């Protein structure tokens, strides 16, 4: 398929969004579904075609750019809406359209009883469009457009049930916290423009090594500001608080936006800007530390949550931490790999959870679940696969990607980062199987109402589950052969990250800063890698074992433990009181300051000035009004005086 | 300007002036006779053979009558108005050609007083000035019937002038000239009444209205306004109005003949000037016939007809002619 069709990939969902949005409430559901699913399906087909074409090209030439139109042309700033396709964006494009398509299909079942069916699909299509613009962007401004667009769609979809106050609040929270991150991102873009005079990826990344000195202040500042944007969008410390609340939205939305695609935008952005980060080792270190910390921190909160979706939300935050850890240790390909596999199994987990919630007529509290294995066989089977995948059990997808990150963390970042990753892995295995056991095993603790309607979900929901299960199962295999060197995805992405070699100081950050190739490859020790793999596998199994002890064999054990370590339990249950701290230390002071500004500055000074000027003008007009006598001939006389003056000037000139 | 030219001009002016002034009694006699016969009576027959001298006698009577001046009348304008009327009528007559050039005493003489190249515009200008005679006459009398008559005729004349002017435009487009003698010459092979029949009809209707004759004689509608704008005029001033009306008829007939009815052209060995006179007589007969046949229009019908029928029709005719001309290349 010709790559010239690339523009259709984002445009088709946009058209779908427009059709469904304009026809909202008037189109029959079947048409809405056809438009919503069809547009993304067609985009997926074209994306696959483009991908195939890209694969058919020689490795070094796998780049295609398409200029749609000139967007801004003002002074030094010249920005075109340009799509760029390279292996990195191709992977992202496939993830977005592929997972997006399945979730659209799933939504036709899940949202079937919804009143605002058309609006939902309009938003979902719009999100797909924005996300595709984000990943296919060829300059920072278009990327920022997509970045803001997905933020908007996230807001709209979290607040989809806007009559519910908590949903509306969660939407606002997500939007505001994202804006804080966007502030950093924007400053990063401004700095880029000041430094390079251009926002095109090609120019910036080509010129960066020659313009920015390695480890220099500017490179570090740009990298850190961009990272602020990434923490906002990808829910990292300290801007992660919005993501758990975002679970107020419909579950497919959680799966698509808050697990598989949008929240990974930060990871993608850092991978895209790897050249800049390679020039800023300090920033890379910050990324790695924040990622590792988030991975462990979020996992600990996930240990005690009772809401099935909240557990998954914290799990997402934790897994995103893994990806940032990978970025931080310059394992860009590994991070993208984990991004991809995570998209599969986390989407599957969310959709499975959605299926459970759907079956239980909206119940989300795991204390009122249990024993659902026999009632929801398909959901159970697929959920089990996903849980195994995220826990990192061989040969599921998560195993490959997580181990690659842990190995890179060890070899590039040192034992401390590795240890954090391993602790995170243990916690992940534990809380995921806690979720699994609490939901599908043990005694049935259902409410009578939920029990009455208990049923397996329709095919439109279970088929996407099964497809995602297959992907979770085999998704990791694209990285075989297992051991370092020669993996397929790495090879595919290699042209993108090859320019790292040009960043002269690859040696400045460990021996293998450059994506596990070149120098890193030489220092590679297969034995050590296998050992590390076995360790993490053992850790994961240990986590599963503990979960089994706690939630299947002895269901009272968790309660006893909680009672014994009351303080710790409360700390985790209340999410380290971070929301409360933010409220007291940041939100309330800002509210107070805003009130002061409103009353003292806006009302007194600004309004005073405006009103004062208005009054003065009124006064002056009152004077001028007297000249308006209503006598036409006086006006004519004044005209004549003007005539005299003009003639006089012309005569005496 | 040599002497011969001056003599030639003076002679031509005298001829035209004499013809118009002498022609008027003849036309009036003809009108009375024709109307009489059409109304199944005899008409004047006592003064002179067939009553031919009746109009002369009437003129003499008017000449000797007392000249009345209404008490509150505007004296200057009251005197000015009839003069204006007759002057515009006679000036208009100067550009109407009554024949082609003839060679006399070794001189090439055009059978018209002047041959200005914008004769048609000149004609429209003088006829538009003709309105003043009537309007001012009506106003200066300081009497309500004349004022109403004056108002009516001013509105009527401006309205019909428009359609009349536009009905002549196709002729100008075909000949590419505003000169009446050029237009006359262009009809040697075909009279313009054939290709421009609609324009001819419109022109004739407008001509009747412009000369304030029945059925468009609203300005002097006896039954409503006593005698319209000239109610208060008597003696010679009345005679001047009378004269100018008939002079105008002759001018308008002359223009119609020149523009539509082949000017001085005609079959047979009859000379052009004679052809012109024959056509003129027939046309004037047609005027009289109209008067005998049609009842007077109501005023609003008159204005509506002018603006809503004649003007659009003449515009349409002009547009169609333009399209046809362009298509013919």
């Amino acid at each position, binding site marked *: 398929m010709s790559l010239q069709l690339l523009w259709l990939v984002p445009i088709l969902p946009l058209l779908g969004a427009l059709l469904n949005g304009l026809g909202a409430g008037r189109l029959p559901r079947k048409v809405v579904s056809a438009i919503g699913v069809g547009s993304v399906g067609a985009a997926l087909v074209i994306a696959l075609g483009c991908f195939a074409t890209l694969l058919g090209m020689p490795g070094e030439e796998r780049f295609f750019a398409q200029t749609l139109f000139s967007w801004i042309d003002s002074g030094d700033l010249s920005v075109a809406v340009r799509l760029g396709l390279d292996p990195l964006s191709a992977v992202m494009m496939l993830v977005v359209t592929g997972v997006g398509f399945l979730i659209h299909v799933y939504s036709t079942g899940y949202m079937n009883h919804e009143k605002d069916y058309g609006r939902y699909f309009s938003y979902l299509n719009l999100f797909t469009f924005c996300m595709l613009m984000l990943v296919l962007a060829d300059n920072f401004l278009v990327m920022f457009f997509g970045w803001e667009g997905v933020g908007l769609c996230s807001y709209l979809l979290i607040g989809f049930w806007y009559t519910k106050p908590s949903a509306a609040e969660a939407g606002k929270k997500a939007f505001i916290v994202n804006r804080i991150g966007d502030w950093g991102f924007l400053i990063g873009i401004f700095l880029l423009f000041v430094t390079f005079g251009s926002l095109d990826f090609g120019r910036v990344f080509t010129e960066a090594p020659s313009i920015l000195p390695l480890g220099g202040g500017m490179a570090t500042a740009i990298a850190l500001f961009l990272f602020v944007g990434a923490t906002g969008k990808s829910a990292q410390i300290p801007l992660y608080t919005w993501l758990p609340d975002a679970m107020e939205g419909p579950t497919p939305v959680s799966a698509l936006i808050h697990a598989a695609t949008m929240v990974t935008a930060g990871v993608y952005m850092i991978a895209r800007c790897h050249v800049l980060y390679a020039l800023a080792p300090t920033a890379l270190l910050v990324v790695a530390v924040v990622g590792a910390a988030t991975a462990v921190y979020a996992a600990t909160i996930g240990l005690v949550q009772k809401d099935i979706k909240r557990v998954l939300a914290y799990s997402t935050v934790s897994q995103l931490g893994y990806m940032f850890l990978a970025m931080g240790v310059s394992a860009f390909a590994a991070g993208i790999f984990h991004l991809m596999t995570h998209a599969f199994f986390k989407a599957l987990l969310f959709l499975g959870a959605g299926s459970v919630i759907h079956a239980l007529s909206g119940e989300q509290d795991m204390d009122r679940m249990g024993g659902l294995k026999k009632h929801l066989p398909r959901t159970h089977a697929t959920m089990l696969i996903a849980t195994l995948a995220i826990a990192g059990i061989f040969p599921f997808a998560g195993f490959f990607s997580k181990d690659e990150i842990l190995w890179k963390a060890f070899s590039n970042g040192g034992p401390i980062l590795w240890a954090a990753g391993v602790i995170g892995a243990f916690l992940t295995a534990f809380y995921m199987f806690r979720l699994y056991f609490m939901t599908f095993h043990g005694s049935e603790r259902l409410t009578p109402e939920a029990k009455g309607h208990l049923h397996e979900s329709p095919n439109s929901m279970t088929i996407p589950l099964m497809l995602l299960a297959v992907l979770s199962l085999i998704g990791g295999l694209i990285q075989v052969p297992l051991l370092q060197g020669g993996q397929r995805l790495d090879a595919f992405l290699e042209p993108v990250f090859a320019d790292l070699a040009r960043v002269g100081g690859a040696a400045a950050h460990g021996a293998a800063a450059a994506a596990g190739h070149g120098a890193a490859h030489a220092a590679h020790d297969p034995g050590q890698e296998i050992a590390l793999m076995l360790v993490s596998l053992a850790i994961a199994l240990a986590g599963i074992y503990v979960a089994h002890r706690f939630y299947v064999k002895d269901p009272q054990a968790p309660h006893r433990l909680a009672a014994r370590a009351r303080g710790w339990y409360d700390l985790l249950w209340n999410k380290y009181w971070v929301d409360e701290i933010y409220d007291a230390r940041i939100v309330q002071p800002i509210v107070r300051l805003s009130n002061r500004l409103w009353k003292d500055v806006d009302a007194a000074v600004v309004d005073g000035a405006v009103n004062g000027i208005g009054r003065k003008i009124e006064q002056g007009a009152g004077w001028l009004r*007297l000249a*308006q006598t*209503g*006598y*036409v*001939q006086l006006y*004519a006389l004044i005209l*004549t005086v003007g*005539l005299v003056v003009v003639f006089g000037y012309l005569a005496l000139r | 300007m040599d002497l011969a030219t001056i003599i030639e001009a003076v002679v031509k002016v005298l001829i035209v002036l004499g013809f118009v002034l002498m022609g008027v009694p003849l036309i009036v006699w003809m009108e009375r006779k024709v109307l009489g016969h059409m109304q199944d009576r005899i008409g004047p027959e006592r003064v002179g053979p067939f009553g031919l001298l009746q109009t002369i006698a009437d003129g003499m009577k008017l000449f000797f009558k007392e000249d009345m001046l209404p008490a509150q009348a505007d004296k200057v304008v009251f005197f000015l108005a009839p003069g204006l009327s007759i002057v515009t009528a006679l000036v208009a007559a100067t550009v109407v050609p009554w024949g082609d050039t003839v060679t006399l005493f070794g001189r090439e003489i055009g059978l018209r007083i002047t041959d200005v190249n914008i004769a048609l515009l000149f004609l429209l200008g003088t006829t538009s000035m003709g309105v003043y005679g009537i309007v001012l006459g009506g106003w200066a009398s300081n009497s309500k019937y004349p004022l109403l008559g004056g108002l009516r005729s001013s509105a009527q004349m401006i309205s019909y002038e428009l359609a009349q002017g536009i009905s002549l435009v196709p002729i100008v487009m075909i000949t590419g000239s505003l000169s009446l003698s050029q237009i006359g010459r262009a009809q040697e092979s075909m009279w313009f009444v054939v290709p421009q029949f609609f324009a001819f009809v419109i022109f004739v209707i407008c001509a009747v209205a412009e000369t304030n004759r029945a059925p468009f004689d609203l300005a002097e509608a006896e039954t409503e306004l006593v005698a319209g704008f000239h109610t208060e005029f008597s003696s010679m001033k009345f005679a001047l109005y009378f004269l100018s009306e008939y002079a105008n008829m002759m001018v308008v007939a002359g223009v119609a003949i020149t523009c539509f009815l082949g000017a001085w052209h005609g079959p047979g060995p009859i000379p052009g000037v004679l052809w012109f006179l024959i056509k003129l007589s027939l046309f004037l007969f047609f005027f009289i016939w109209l008067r005998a046949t049609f009842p007077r229009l109501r005023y609003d019908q008159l204005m509506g007809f002018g603006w809503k029928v004649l003007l659009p029709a003449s515009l349409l005719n002009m547009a169609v002619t333009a399209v046809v001309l362009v298509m013919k290349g």
Partner: protein
Amino acid sequence: MSTIAVPLAAYQILAGALFTIGVVGVLVRRSALIVFMSIELMLNAVNLSFVAFSRQHGSMDGHIFVFFVMAVAAAEVAIGLAILIAIFRKRETANVDDVHLLKG
């Protein structure tokens, strides 16, 4: 016509005089109708100088301007007289200084 029988300046002075008389009329007459006529007078003064300049320069653009001025004058008179009739119907006056509803 080799000699300059009437110089351009003569036309200009005539136009200026007419224009000035028009100005006076606009400024000192009370009747709106006369004010209108004075405006026509001013327009015609300008027309005269246009035509005179046209003759002087041998370019017909001045004629075109006169043409436009006439069109505008016609429009102005149509509207102006209509307004005048409307005012007269309401207030029984044609004096400009009796109509000052817009005064401040």
